């Protein structure tokens, strides 16, 4: 998106997520008793404003995809509130959700797996129309052709099967299906992760183009930081089921506040070899803790280069150190600002470039 102006405080959020939790129970033992839960998403809150793209980044296994699917209620969430256009959908049953489905759609990660191999393109794109509209056969066909035009697929391909297409074309089919019911909000779950680099750009450009034409709102889930920088207006960083930092794109990429974000961004390669040589990489040690047994205090405290004693005891709350820039870290809590010369000073990376 070229306009970043709308990033901060648009009139009203289209999507409001409050304290979303998605825990998957673990059963073990002879009696299959419940012995715990994988806290895939553990208390996530954010807003998405109309017409913007919110990027959701994080390493694999941090709960990004689960979060996206939970927002669309593909899962029965453990707790929390999901409002779309002020309409609470977090607690609705699947039957009550059905009439609300057209407003929110999803583009999936694996374009091979997300298309039924036994259906033609026309039937795949037409499935939402079959479910939610009463168009005649001819009207449906016209709408399918219209959608195929919109995503740049040749109309003659309508009778073909998914396996006859390349990855990029399949992803276009998936996008056309998501667009069929004129949704307002689309969750893009790593839509480019399974594609070639050259095709990635095409698909991302297509998504941006469609956003401009139809006024779509995206939740763009990805682990590709440079792609998110390109497409997103605001970015949320997830770690172990929580959002650790949420900020407008430029603010986040320019001056990340959370140590995890700093580490993530330092891993993005720099094209200029001189800069690259002089740049400080923050290498995180150890592994991500198990989401079934997250550490006490801050989730990141086990790997944080700047961890303080308090981090191991108290879970930091989301604060707003800069307007519109949120971070959940004790380093930015006025009560716990580390004193000069503490452990943090050694590894403190430069903020900004």
């Amino acid at each position, binding site marked *: 998106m070229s306009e970043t102006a709308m990033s901060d405080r648009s009139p009203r959020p289209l999507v409001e997520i409050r304290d979303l939790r998605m825990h998957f129970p673990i059963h073990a033992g002879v009696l299959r008793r419940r012995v715990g839960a994988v806290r895939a998403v553990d208390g996530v809150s954010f807003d998405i404003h109309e017409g913007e793209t919110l990027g959701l980044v994080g390493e694999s296994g941090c709960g990004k995809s689960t979060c996206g699917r939970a927002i*669309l209620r593909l899962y029965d969430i453990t707790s929390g509130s999901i409002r779309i256009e002020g309409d609470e959908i977090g607690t609705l049953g699947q039957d009550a959700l059905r009439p609300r489905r057209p407003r929110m759609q999803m583009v*999936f990660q694996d374009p091979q797996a997300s298309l*039924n*191999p036994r259906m033609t393109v026309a039937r795949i794109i037409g*499935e939402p129309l079959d*479910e939610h509209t009463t168009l005649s056969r001819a009207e449906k*066909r016209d709408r399918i052709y219209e959608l195929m035009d919109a995503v740049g697929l040749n109309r003659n391909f309508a009778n073909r099967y998914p*396996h006859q297409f390349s990855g990029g074309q399949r992803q276009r089919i998936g996008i056309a299906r998501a667009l069929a019911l004129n949704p307002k909000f689309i969750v893009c779950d790593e839509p480019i992760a399974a594609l070639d680099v050259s*095709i990635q750009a095409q698909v991302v450009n297509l998504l941006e183009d469609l956003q401009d034409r139809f006024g779509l709102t995206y939740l763009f889930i990805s682990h590709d930081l440079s792609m998110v920088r390109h497409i997103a207006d605001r970015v949320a960083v997830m770690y172990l089921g929580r959002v650790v930092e949420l900020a407008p794109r430029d603010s986040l990429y320019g001056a990340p506040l959370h140590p995890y974000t700093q580490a993530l961004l330092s891993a993005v390669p720099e094209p200029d070899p001189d800069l690259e040589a002089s740049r400080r990489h923050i290498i995180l040690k150890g592994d991500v803790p198990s989401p079934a047994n997250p550490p006490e205090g801050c989730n990141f405290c086990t790997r944080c280069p700047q961890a303080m004693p308090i981090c191991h005891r108290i879970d930091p709350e989301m604060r707003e150190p800069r307007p519109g820039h949120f971070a959940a870290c004790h380093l930015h809590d006025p009560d716990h600002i580390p004193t000069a010369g503490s452990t943090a000073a050694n590894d403190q990376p430069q903020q900004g470039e």
Partner: protein
Amino acid sequence: MTDAPMIETMEIARPPRNQWLDVWDQFRSHRGALLGAAFFAVILAAVFLGPLIWQIDPTYIDIRARNQGPSLAHPFGTDQLGRDTLARMLAGGQVSLAVGLTAMGLSLVLGTLIGVLAGYFRRLDGALMRLTDLFLALPLLPLLLVIIMLFRDALRSAFGPEGGIFVLIVFVIGITSWMQTARIVRGDVLALKEQEFVLAARSIGTPSRRMITRHILPNVLSPIMVSATLGIASAIITESALSFLGLGFPSDFPTWGRLLFDSTDYLQQYPERVIWPGLAISLTVLSVNYMGDGLRDALDPRIRGR
């Protein structure tokens, strides 16, 4: 390249072609399937239309012509009571094929239903699979004996002697052979359910019943086909075993299985008597197998057009 505009073939876009035409095209190109279908058609025609031409009564006893080898008067020979083997083969084929096809259909429907329900609905899974295990663990022969003993007379009076036995045998074979299908189908459904296209359908709001008919069933067609073709064979064999035990059709009522078992006593003297029904059963099963193979390929768009 992905979106390079295709070479100028901007003809008026054709309306979607009927999928069954594609299926038929592919089926036609499968030589084995075509041969199998042709052969099966020949067997069906012979069995159901043959008695109109070969008008010897299969139960007519000509004691002076017993134990004859093949001749012009009796192309397949005669049995120990002088009954014409060809006529008995044709009459027996009607029953065996009818039993095989209907029992297979019943066990297929039952197995698919239970497999899909158990795989798709988590809450039903435990109960239905324990039921399947129960049926698998039951000693089948005693069970068949009990069922037949209990219900034979009631059914005989309701449908007549032969009709009653037919219903009973089809039912008994059907409800004791669905377990393999159910297990295979359940396994496939469990895997399919986690595929992203099922998730995509859920995000569209497709209700469960259409999810099953539109996305699940077409994709578990291959294992169902395979167990169907194998099921015909085992149904024919089970029927003959039941007849052999004296629980199936009356002993003078010919079926392929019956003929096979009757002739085993004379295996050393007259081996050709075993060969005729054995050949009929194997060829039927083989042709059905090839047909199923071709149909499975034809219904899979990934294989189609290769």
